[in-house]
């Protein structure tokens, strides 16, 4: 996957680029609106990560540019403004998703993966990871062609893990992903532990390899 990160905060930009590059993706970055337009007019990307508050203008300009140039890059807005108006405006002029800062890199990756899948024209609605097949349309999961029944949260978690395969994911990031706005989970991660235990058991019961490993003290890792 080829990505373009448009973000003026250097530290954040570097982290995003590193996190995405490790996975065999090509991740380029630019710091302002002018640079973004420049890059987008010369190259094609699969996905654009767009900060709204740029030093030389509003990120919405990029969306307008893409629309005018009839380019079909998937766009994910990353904004410091958790504003309903911005969200609606962004989604109306062509953005595919809106993520409010601060976010976990794992969350960003899962969102990018989902946006990319939706956008990819030849998508067959299936994610295949070794023996695990996830049917996105029907929200069903099969292991070695044996269907397994997962709860909504377990299904979400599996997709999240697959999108972040090979990465250590903190319990905080998982809690944020699963419960997000719904609930302030504080430091109570028992819920997550139970869900992961159940998911792992269901996968193992279907003769799946044990991919979910615990990284003691911090979280989990889905072994690639």
């Amino acid at each position, binding site marked *: 996957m080829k990505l373009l990160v448009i973000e003026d905060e250097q530290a954040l930009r570097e*982290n995003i680029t590193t996190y995405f590059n*490790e996975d065999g993706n090509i991740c380029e970055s630019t710091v302002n609106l002018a640079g973004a337009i420049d890059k987008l007019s010369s190259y094609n990307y699969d996905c654009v990560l767009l900060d709204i508050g740029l030093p030389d203008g509003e990120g919405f300009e990029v969306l307008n540019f893409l629309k005018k140039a009839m380019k079909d890059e998937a766009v994910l807005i990353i904004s*410091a403004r958790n504003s*309903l108006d911005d969200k609606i405006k962004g989604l109306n002029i062509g953005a595919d998703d809106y993520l409010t*800062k601060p976010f976990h890199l794992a969350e960003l990756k899962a969102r990018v993966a989902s946006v990319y899948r939706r956008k990819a024209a030849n998508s067959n609605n299936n994610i295949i990871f070794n023996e695990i097949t996830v049917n996105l349309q029907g929200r069903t999961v099969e292991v070695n062609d044996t269907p397994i029944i997962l709860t909504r949260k377990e299904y979400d978690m599996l997709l999240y893990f697959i999108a972040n395969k090979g990465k250590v994911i*903190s319990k905080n990031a998982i809690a944020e992903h699963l419960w997000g*706005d719904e609930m302030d989970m504080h*430091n109570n991660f028992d819920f997550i532990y139970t869900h992961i235990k159940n998911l792992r058991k269901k996968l193992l019961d279907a003769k799946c390899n044990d991919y979910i490993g615990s990284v*003691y003290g911090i979280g989990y890792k889905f072994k690639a």
Partner: protein
Amino acid sequence: MILYILILKRKRRKKEEGRAVSSIITLNGNNYLTTLIVSRADTEYLVQIIGLITLVLSIGLLLTLFITNRYILNGLWKPFYKTLAELKSFNISDNKSLILKSTKVDEFNELNDTVQLMSLNVKNDFQNLKEFTENASHEMQTPLAVITSKLDTLIQDETLKTDQYEQINDIYAATNKLARLNQSLLLLVKIENNLIADIELLRLDILIEEKIKQFYELTNDKQIKVETHLAIKEISASKYLIDILLNNLFSNAIRHNISKGKLIIILNTDKLLFKNDGLPQILDKSNMFDRFKKGNKSEGTGLGLAIVKNICTLNNWTISYFHETSFHVFKIEF
């Protein structure tokens, strides 16, 4: 020698007041006792008449004063009372500004102008303060994002020891709390500024049913028994805010619930009740809806109930808390 004497008038046989002077006069070698008497009856009569006239005049004057006060001055003071009423209804967080009509009286006009100017200044200051809160919160989001992403990158290094991971975990938790606080503050500012205006017609009973499904895993984990008595109820409000309201009420009711406890939700056309089991202690009613007021054991931001209260106020609903047998009850009256 001057004497006051009473003389007897023979004709009328009536006592009258008078003044007399008597002295001995020697005339041609003979001594005469002479007495001069002046009657005071006329003066007394005069005094009575004057008194009566004064009294009648005073009463007349008072009456006129009363009437003028009542009917004429009342009209004259009308602009003042109008200004006073406007001032009483003045609310700093309202969006509408104080508008005072000009009058024919210069003094009142001056008063109105001063009051209007003052209210404008106060409002501007208040607005600036709120904008400052909003901007400060926004500016904090990016550094928070940097911290989170740095931590996310840091933990990829699997040579870290467990206790180092645990330290990182604490940083994560603190950052997470800070981010939530920030978002809650922003939300409060937005509600108070009435900036969320996506009002639509909502079926509250259906929304509650959806929320129960959404929180199923959490209630299930704690083995909380959820009981509902929902009547059909339509409200017109912002879906975004009602979602937050229900989220906060649900998380409260689940978080402070006991294992194998109960959560009873009752919805009528005029009220919504959230009853949940919990620790037997009775909570402090007086300030539980204030910002940053929370129970000893609560690890929340302390803004959850303040947000709930503000959403209720925005929709002209009242929220109250009471303790009923073993239940903690939150009641919203529409």
